[in-house]
């Protein structure tokens, strides 16, 4: 039994006040740790040898956009379910851990989309199959409300699944480069990739600041003190950003940066990439159009 566990269960410890006090610190630390972990995890999966990993990132981006647009435009539950089935198949062939893929999507959605859509089930006008009466009020979900909510949740689920699939199977540098195919200016792509690189440095400094504070402060601090500390650390990080940007600029100049952005493009679309792209877009278009004939 570790020290912390024996401390927690010690009878002398009456009120768990410290936990409440430090909640905001721990939440931030956990959030930062979570995003770093996710980035590492994503990189790991994007290097595996799977079906989506082998496809040219530009083709993958096109496939993603086609599928997401289809999910956004289609208004039938079955079309959306079909698209979700396709996403599951793609995940299977790309060696994305199945439970991760399904769990991550379906744990988040009921909490956000589900809660958002819940009241509308009761207020959409229509037939109420399961209704009970209180005074002169009739309470119960309506059929159109339920159908609308199911379609809404399914659509959000498909969109989120597709985004997860794209990100998990593509190294971020490739993903950013593939944006060139959409005629995103080079300067933007350079900015994005530099930002991505410095995010981890800043997250690391933020973790250090929070851990230092956590390990050196005992007892009760007022909300006002906490907010002052937070805004102090925001100001401090801003100061570091200024200093660092000067240093980085000096380093870039020293390495011959003239303001021109060039990047090596090693991507080559093969026949298989074209096939995958055309097939996916056709399936996506089919899912939208099928409804008109059914």
């Amino acid at each position, binding site marked *: 039994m570790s020290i912390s566990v024996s401390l927690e269960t010690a009878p002398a410890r009456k009120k768990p006040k410290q936990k409440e006090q430090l909640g905001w610190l721990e939440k931030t630390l956990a959030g930062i740790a979570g995003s770093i972990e996710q980035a590492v995890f994503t990189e790991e999966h994007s290097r595996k040898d799977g079906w989506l990993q082998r496809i040219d990132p530009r083709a993958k981006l096109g496939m993603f956009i086609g599928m997401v647009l289809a999910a956004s435009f289609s208004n039938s539950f079955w079309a959306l379910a079909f698209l979700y089935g396709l996403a599951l198949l793609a995940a299977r062939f790309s060696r994305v851990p199945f439970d991760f893929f399904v769990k991550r999507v379906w744990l988040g959605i009921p909490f956000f989309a589900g809660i958002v859509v819940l009241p509308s089930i009761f207020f959409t006008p229509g037939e109420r199959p399961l209704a009970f009466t209180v005074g002169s009020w009739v309470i119960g979900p309506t059929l159109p409300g339920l159908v*609308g909510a199911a379609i809404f949740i399914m659509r959000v689920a498909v969109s989120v699944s597709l985004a997860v699939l794209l990100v998990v199977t593509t190294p971020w540098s490739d993903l950013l480069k593939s944006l060139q195919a959409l005629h995103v200016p080079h300067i933007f792509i350079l900015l994005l990739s530099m930002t991505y690189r410095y995010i981890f440095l800043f997250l690391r400094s933020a973790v250090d600041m929070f851990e230092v504070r956590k390990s050196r402060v005992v007892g009760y601090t007022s909300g006002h003190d906490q907010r002052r500390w937070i805004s102090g650390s925001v100001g401090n990080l801003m100061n570091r950003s200024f200093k660092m940007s000067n240093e980085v600029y000096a380093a870039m100049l020293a390495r011959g940066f003239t303001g021109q952005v060039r990047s090596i493009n090693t991507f080559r679309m093969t026949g298989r990439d074209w096939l995958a792209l055309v097939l996916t877009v056709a399936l996506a278009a089919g899912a939208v159009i099928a409804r008109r004939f059914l």
Partner: protein
Amino acid sequence: MHIPDGYLSPIVSVGAGVVTLPAWAIATHRVKAVLNHRTVPLLAIFAAFAFTIMMFNIPVPGGTTAHAVGGTLIAVVLGPWAAVLGISMALILQALFFGDGGILAIFINCMNMAVALPFVGYYTYRLIAGRSPLLSARRVWAAGIGAFLGITAAGLLVGTELGLQPILFSENGHALYSPYGLGEAIPAMLLSHVLGASIVEGLVTALGVAYLQKNHPEYLTSLKNIVAGGSVAEGQVTRRPIWQTITVSAVIGLAVLLICGLITGGGDPAKMFGAEWSSVSWSDVAVMLLIVGIISAALVPLAWFALPGRLKKTGAWFTAGAVLAPLGLIAPGFAYGEGSVDDVSQAFGYVPKGLQDLSNIFSAPFSGYNVPLGFTNGNNSQLWRAAIGYEISGIAGILLVGLIVYGLAFLITRTRRTTASDTPATTEVQPQ
């Protein structure tokens, strides 16, 4: 505030590019003109900074936490165009790599948070700051209010966009995307921002600017053109005494109330807030004020001393609020949504049937928030008597609710403790 994919019609979410793309183009051009090649590392690093501070949980009064965006802070220091690019980069990375906000929704999320937010924030700041010295307290306030309004404007935009969906995109009477109309979506977004996120953003921005003034004034003075839009005096870091702040904000608050009252009353001081003030008997009001004063003089210190340490401040404020509540009786007319059946029939000329049914189901012991005694509730009872009845029923209600909550909390902790002591071997601490 990050809209995920699927909430909006792609026509809206991709269509927002009409605003976002030109904004990005202008921003790149403007920032390059000011900062030339330095732009690239500066913007990349500030975008990383924006991303990092969006992860900070800020303790909010009441025990929860909220996120800051920091857009106004960046806009105040680097200018709104730089803020547009910095926050956009952070938002794009959040959507692409961390699943926060949809990918099709990037345009619309950037329009709300990276275009509207810094511009509203920055120009409010400039308007309030005027030509005051760079290191003056007025600029701290200006930045705080700018940040508050900036994020509220972004929330209003999100509410409008969500609210437009069922109006524009419906099929056979059911909504295809977000199902709530403008009447629900806008108040929900506005309220949650005005009462929470906006206050936090304002506080953090104000405190952040104050921190920069005190510790790194060079960032405000060397970028003078952006921070103040021209040459102004540097000035000294000043700290306004707290009583001045409170007085100024109280005066401003009263003035705003007065103006609102005059507007709703059609400019006639006797009809402020649309009520008929000439029907109030002011001598009754004086007696009532006296009684309320006496009661609060007795009860507020009592609450202060009786309550345990951590509840003292909040408890005393709540007691004061509860005691002062009957002052609302002065206002002629009935409170919106609280009127009895009689009031409703008087105002509308008829009684909805559902209301009549419902009002008969339950008749409260203190109906109409009053004690059913001739003294306080008689036909010709005076205002101050009604006020005493109001006070008694209010205090009884608060005590009742307090007792119920306390009892429930007691029961919960007790059951938890007994289960914990029954099985001491399994009390593993869950890692947070």
